[in-house]
């Protein structure tokens, strides 16, 4: 088979994080290649390099055997490489045809001729696109189709699709696969970035696997099975030596029953989730990103509206039991349930970037001081304590927190939540983007909280950490609770498999014992 693209020894780092290190990948003409890997394994970065979004730090790219340098999406198109991103790059108020010709300069500006060509492309591959339709009137699947048409219109021979099925219904996915097959029949090369094993098995000819920025290997799809792929994807378990003590007389704190949530578009993001969280243990939540982790934490914190029939019961230390659904976030916080949510951008939630540590501390407590004026001294004292105990590196407690490094911002956030002496502490992606040492500081903080009897809920993406830090792990798959596993006995492969394959509701190991 002929090479369409060869990428050799590609490395790319962002700050101290190596997104890709010495990755080699070949794409043949007329094949469907699945690029498989967990979140943060560097799949998208690698393909962004090929499509001109990022420029590699080192390495070579060959297109049809010739070495090329690709520094912009436009140059990628000149080499007949087109990428369809997860976030569509379309102008809402433009029609399909206007979006298609946008930025093309080497042909006459003639929307009628362009419409004709779009119709030709649609006829050839079986797309359904109305060239005059405005993008804001299109469904997600139509927008995706338009993006593919746009790439083909520019003469793409290598098409990269970044998690194309994440936003599609099963029927739409099948339609997309048919289109992909007809493009392959036409001699195009298609790369699908994904972490869904069943789709890999169904559509691809070959699979290349990345893990933590490294190239692991490639196999012919017909010679492999989901279990083997999972092993390649998650790798052998690495020992991290995170401090973990056995839970001491765990007490029931949170009981979640049949929790269902729909997002603003009406899509069900959580389906009948039921579990219990105990004080004195760390409950991990594993899952591919976007499988409902965020919604789950937000519903507990009162930031998401749950469907009727859902119930979240809080068992307070004084023995009272309260239903939390319907309560305001502040009321839930006053009960001792704290959300220390750390989303992608650390300052997005929880902290105000332009305010200093002490003012950020005050955000949670200013309501308690009487009268119209705030009392700044307690928060100042608290900021000093957090700064000292967690070793926050900051010139002063009044330095705007956006000027601090990621790890220090994280410490401020977690420190503030811990200082409120919570009974339930929820964190998500608490160590994302942090170096090893800071990560361990955070793990130890959480372990300490657990030892003091706090029910810690930890949403994480690194399976090694989840297995070593948590006591039990909930595995989410597509918004459903797939299983609750014992972190001390479970294998990494098992979690990886359950994250990608819905195996049916398993039993909670603790509840079996009791």
């Amino acid at each position, binding site marked *: 088979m002929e090479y369409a693209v060869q990428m050799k020894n590609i490395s790319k780092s962002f700050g101290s994080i190596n997104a890709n290190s010495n990755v080699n990948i070949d794409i043949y003409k007329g094949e469907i290649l699945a690029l498989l890997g967990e979140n943060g394994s560097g799949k998208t970065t690698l393909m962004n390099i090929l499509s001109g979004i990022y420029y590699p730090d080192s390495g070579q790219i060959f297109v049809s055997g010739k070495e090329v340098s690709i520094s912009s999406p436009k140059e990628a198109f000149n080499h007949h490489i087109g990428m369809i991103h997860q976030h569509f790059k379309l102008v809402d108020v433009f029609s399909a045809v206007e979006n298609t010709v946008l930025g093309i300069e080497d042909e006459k500006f003639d929307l009628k001729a362009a419409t004709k060509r779009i119709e030709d492309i649609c006829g050839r591959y079986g797309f359904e696109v109305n060239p005059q339709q*405005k993008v804001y009137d299109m469904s997600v699947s139509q927008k995706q189709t338009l993006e593919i048409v746009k790439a083909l219109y520019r003469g793409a021979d290598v098409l990269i699709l970044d998690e194309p099925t994440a936003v599609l219904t099963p029927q739409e996915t099948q339609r997309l696969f048919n289109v992909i097959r007809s493009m392959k029949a036409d001699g195009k090369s298609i790369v699908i970035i994904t972490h869904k094993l069943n789709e890999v098995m169904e559509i691809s000819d070959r699979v290349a696997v990345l893990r933590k920025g490294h190239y692991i290997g490639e196999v012919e799809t017909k010679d492999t099975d989901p279990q083997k792929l999972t092993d390649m994807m998650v790798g052998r378990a690495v020992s991290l030596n995170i401090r973990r003590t056995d839970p001491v007389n765990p007490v029931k704190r949170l009981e979640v029953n049949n929790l269902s949530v729909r997002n603003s578009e009406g899509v069900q993001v959580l389906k009948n989730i039921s579990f219990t969280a105990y004080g004195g243990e760390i409950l991990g939540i594993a899952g591919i990103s976007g499988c409902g982790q965020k919604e789950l934490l937000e519903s507990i914190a009162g930031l998401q509206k749950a469907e009727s029939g859902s119930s979240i019961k809080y068992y307070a230390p004084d023995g009272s039991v309260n239903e939390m659904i319907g309560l305001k976030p502040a009321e839930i916080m006053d009960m001792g349930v704290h959300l220390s949510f750390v989303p992608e951008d650390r300052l997005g939630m929880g902290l105000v970037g332009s305010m200093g540590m002490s003012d950020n501390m005050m955000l949670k407590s200013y309501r308690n001081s009487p009268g119209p004026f705030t009392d700044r001294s307690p928060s100042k004292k608290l900021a000093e304590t957090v700064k000292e105990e967690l070793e926050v590196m900051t010139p002063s407690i009044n330095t705007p927190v956006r000027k601090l490094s990621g790890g220090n911002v994280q410490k401020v956030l977690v420190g503030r939540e811990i200082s409120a002496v919570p009974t339930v502490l929820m964190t998500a992606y608490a160590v994302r983007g942090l170096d090893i040492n800071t990560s361990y500081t955070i793990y130890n903080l959480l372990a300490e909280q657990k030892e003091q009897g706090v029910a810690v809920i930890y949403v994480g993406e690194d399976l090694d950490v989840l297995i070593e830090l948590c006591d039990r792990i909930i595995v989410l798959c597509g918004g459903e609770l797939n299983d609750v596993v014992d972190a001390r006995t479970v294998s990494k492969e098992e979690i990886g498999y359950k994250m990608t394959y819905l195996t049916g509701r398993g039993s909670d190991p603790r509840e079996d014992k009791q």
Partner: protein
Amino acid sequence: MTQILSLIQSAIIFGTVIMFGALGEILTEKSGNLNLGVPGIMSLGAIGSLMGAFWYEQSAAAPVPVLCLLVSFAAAMLFSLAGGLIYSFITITLRANQNVTGLTLTIFGCGFANFFGGSLNKLAGGVGQISLPITSKAYRAVIPFLSNIPIIKNIGWLVYAGIILAFVLQRWMFKSRAGLNLRAVGENPATADAAGINVIKYKYFSTCAGAMISGLGGLFYIMDYIKGTWASDGGIEALGWLAVALVIFATWRPRSAIWGSYLFGLLSWMYYYIGGLTRSTSELFKTLPYVVTIAVLIFVSLRRKKENLGPSALGLSYFREER
């Protein structure tokens, strides 16, 4: 009857001032730059044209009308371009807040114009003594065969130039490749960038060209509306804000700015032709253009048609996505 005729004429002249202002601002806003410095830029254009014409008419023994036009036009363009460049550099290159920059530019432009307007007054021998008979007359020249029609017999050629400009801009924005690119920049700069469009270049171009068109409004104000003199009465600033309102009223379409500006002119001058108004009640009438703009905003927002709501990225600085 003569009253109505003269109302319509006043409305057209008044409307043309804000039409130029609004056309420039539409071009600017289509690139996603909300330039609230329109009143300042119009003042700069006004004082530029005044200074140019004053200098030429004073220094030449026998001023030639064509040169009068050229000198004052060039000066007006230069001054308003400077305003546009200041705004572009601060908001596009330095990515400062657009609202603050625009408002500051308005304060600067108006102050600058009033300062030099006062100096010119002094040079001319006192307040209201500036007169530019030749330049003003050249700008107010009527088009021969159109001047036979009674309702528009006193309308100068710049009014028609404005109408033609509106049609040209409309066609350019909605029917050309560059127009498509420009609208993409204003709607979704990240997408435009990914498509290989030079976002910065388009923003600079349309903001500077827009400032020059707005500056024409100031020139028209001096040469036609107040017939070649100067008054530091804040008149240009008031009209500048009306121009900004007109952009919304016209839902960012140059063609709609034509009739919109005349309607604003009618509403603004109506008080003059309605009998029995006191000073205070006539002020109420002058608010009509703004009331109509608010009504249009409500109507447009209720209809929720995305095309009428203005560029989606309006007022936002563009940062290229970087990790």
